[in-house]
């Protein structure tokens, strides 16, 4: 099963409202990342939060991480129609001492966000 599970699967809001998406994961991680995908396009990296960080901001994005609950949330404030896209969390799993992760990421199934003008 997927390391990252996202909730909700779909979210529909009006422009100007905030959008919150949640991600849960199962194993220990080095970091957790959020990506965005516009319809028919490749994924674009949004923000990365390390396992020793609890909150991170980038523009209108706010990411939180709770390693005790193995969960993260992405908040988009003052949403715009242009934010309409799918959003994915991805985890970089912690490897045992002596191991190499090779940068592999495990992606969640994504949240489809629709922002209505």
């Amino acid at each position: 099963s997927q390391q990252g599970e996202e909730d909700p699967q779909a979210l529909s809001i009006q422009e100007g409202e905030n959008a919150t998406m949640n991600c849960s994961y199962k194993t220990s991680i080095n970091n957790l990342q959020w990506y965005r995908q516009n319809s028919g396009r490749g994924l674009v990296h949004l923000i990365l939060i390390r396992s020793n960080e609890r909150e991170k901001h980038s523009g209108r994005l706010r990411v939180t991480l709770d390693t005790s609950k193995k969960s993260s949330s992405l908040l988009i404030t003052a949403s715009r129609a242009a934010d309409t896209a799918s959003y994915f969390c991805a985890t970089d799993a912690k490897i045992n001492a002596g191991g190499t992760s090779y940068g592999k990421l495990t992606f969640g199934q994504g949240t489809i966000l629709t922002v209505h003008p």
Partner: protein
Amino acid sequence: DAGITQSPRHKVTETGTPVTLRCHQTENHRYMYWYRQDPGHGLRLIHYSYGVKDTDKGEVSDGYSVSRSKTEDFLLTLESATSSQTSVYFCAIRRRTADYNEQFFGPGTRLTVL
């Protein structure tokens, strides 16, 4: 876009035929990845490479092989395509930044196996 291109961008083929997808990068990155994306499954790692001739299997590698004979090209081959391999395939590279292990994706290849 990290200088990543994928070819072809669209392909329709028949069951049982071999198919090769190409990922090309222009920035000399060491790590490259192939994913498939299907509704309800998100992105799943097929194979990855950590250098020329250095490759390994990902989560869903059955029915796929890869090759990397030079840094800039990472090829994904379906030896005998099946309908279950109808999907959108994305290539990605790992770029060394201040926040290590960010991945940058190509535009994708939409493959239909009839």
